[in-house]
């Protein structure tokens, strides 16, 4: 194929919007939850699960409706989402700066990485008493706990991505006299982007896990508090409703990240992008 043919094909692909590949059908991901729902409802209807242990999907839906009409559910969802969003942004920002510095500078790595690796081993709940002591029981301690949870996967993945950047690409930066900032911004961070997106997804998932711990440690609002409330008042339907809301919120936020990541990684020419293009 000569250059002219290739240019024509490229123009036609751009005109027809074919460079980004097909979107996979979304309904396939709903098959398993629908089946689980069916099995769950059947087991409850045949009284394998008693309502005081495991309420039926219908009872959970009714409870969700009750909480919504009472005007409480929306506020709980907003408070929890806000906490996760703030903690995620804070944890990601710090992890990105520290990860880029440690990845780029061997000296920064020698000073910082051993301590961070040791702190990574501290269980999340072990931070709770300290954070309450430092920041009180209100919002700051909760956001800080979530940020700690988000920090480590983002930091570790960004670091791994930067350290595994192809030496040959870094040499291109060196022979073109790129300064440290441009080298990090234009070569190291973009090269680490696939790892970084993986780290962001893992960090977000941990953010949702840590928000429960944060809200269980003393809150008067939020989905974690709703679960605690369900436990205290003996309403398993409330607990399961909160669990389902956590799963939906986690899935929606992850889908948003995946969509943003897909745009940022459109340049990739790997197995997954080939699958997306062919629909295989």
């Amino acid at each position, binding site marked *: 194929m000569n250059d002219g043919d*290739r240019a024509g094909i490229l123009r036609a692909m751009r005109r027809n919007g074919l460079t980004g590949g097909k979107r996979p059908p979304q309904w396939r991901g709903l098959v398993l939850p629908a089946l689980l729902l069916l099995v769950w409802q059947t087991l409850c209807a045949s009284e394998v699960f008693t309502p005081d242990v495991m309420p039926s999907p219908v009872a959970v839906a009714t409870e969700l409706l009750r909480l919504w009409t009472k005007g409480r559910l929306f506020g709980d969802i907003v408070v929890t989402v806000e906490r996760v969003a703030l903690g995620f942004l804070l944890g990601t920002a710090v992890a990105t700066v520290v990860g880029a510095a440690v990845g780029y500078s061997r000296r920064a790595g020698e000073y910082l990485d051993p301590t961070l690796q040791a702190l990574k081993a501290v269980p999340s709940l072990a931070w709770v008493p300290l954070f309450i002591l430092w920041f009180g029981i209100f919002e700051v301690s909760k956001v800080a706990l979530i940020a700690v949870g988000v920090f480590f996967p983002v930091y570790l993945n960004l670091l791994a991505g930067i350290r595994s950047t192809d030496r040959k690409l870094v040499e291109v930066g*060196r*022979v073109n006299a790129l300064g440290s900032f441009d080298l990090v911004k*234009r070569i190291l961070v973009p090269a680490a982007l696939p790892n970084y997106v993986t780290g962001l997804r893992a960090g977000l998932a941990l953010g949702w896990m840590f928000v429960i711990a944060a809200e269980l440690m003393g809150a008067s609002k939020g989905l974690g508090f709703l679960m605690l409330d369900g436990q205290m008042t003996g309403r398993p339907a409330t607990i399961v409703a909160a669990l389902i809301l956590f799963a939906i919120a986690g899935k929606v936020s992850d889908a948003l990240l995946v969509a943003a990541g897909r745009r940022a990684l459109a*340049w*990739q020419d790997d197995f997954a992008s080939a699958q997306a293009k062919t629909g295989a």
Partner: protein
Amino acid sequence: MLQISGLTKRYDDGAGLRHSALDRIDLAVGEHEAVALVGTSGCGKTTLLRIVSGLEQASDGWLTLRGDPVTGPRRDVGVVFQEPRLMPWLTVRENVRLALLDLARAAQDTAIIDLLQDVGLVDFAEALPRQLSGGMAQRVAIARALARKPSVLLLDEPLSALDSFTRVKLQDHLNTLWKKSRFTLILVTHDIDEAIVLSDRIIVMRGQPGRIYRELSVDLTRPRRRTAPEFQTIKEEVIRALDLS
């Protein structure tokens, strides 16, 4: 222009053993001269080029460019590697821009268009590297290396991964660029024809550690015809010097 004297390169293999890649290389390359380094695999051609580019340091000896010791990559030295080494996340335009970041944005844009016109890829400015053929990607790499108007262009087997038709086309293209810009050219190649087509002087390297075994002058008018008897005579001399006959 470029002076190399007693240049030696030794590597530590990590187990305390030292392996020599280059041994006492002496070489002088003049302004606007085109020099080809040829030799069998492992004779240190690429190592020598990497030291000239400033990506590696010599263990002994000295190397100066216009009288200044070479201690690292320099703005006036362009390098084209064996592979195009384009950033896969950047378009062709942005890959070339990497070499022009010290200019104002408008000057960068003008220079990029000129460079892409020179290598015949102006229609591909917005293409990603994965949408280019091997020859096109290597032309982008050449445009990027020429972006800062280097006084020395180092080519490390830049055409070795290409098919023979594309290689001949790009050799002609490099000749045109060299005539136009008159940079000093140092080319590492395995391809004797390529060395004769592109250079004024062929340096034959042999042995491990690599040493300069012979220098041959290519006194042929450009463009050079591969079928010309003088071309074949030089080719046979290089083959003999390489001990391949």
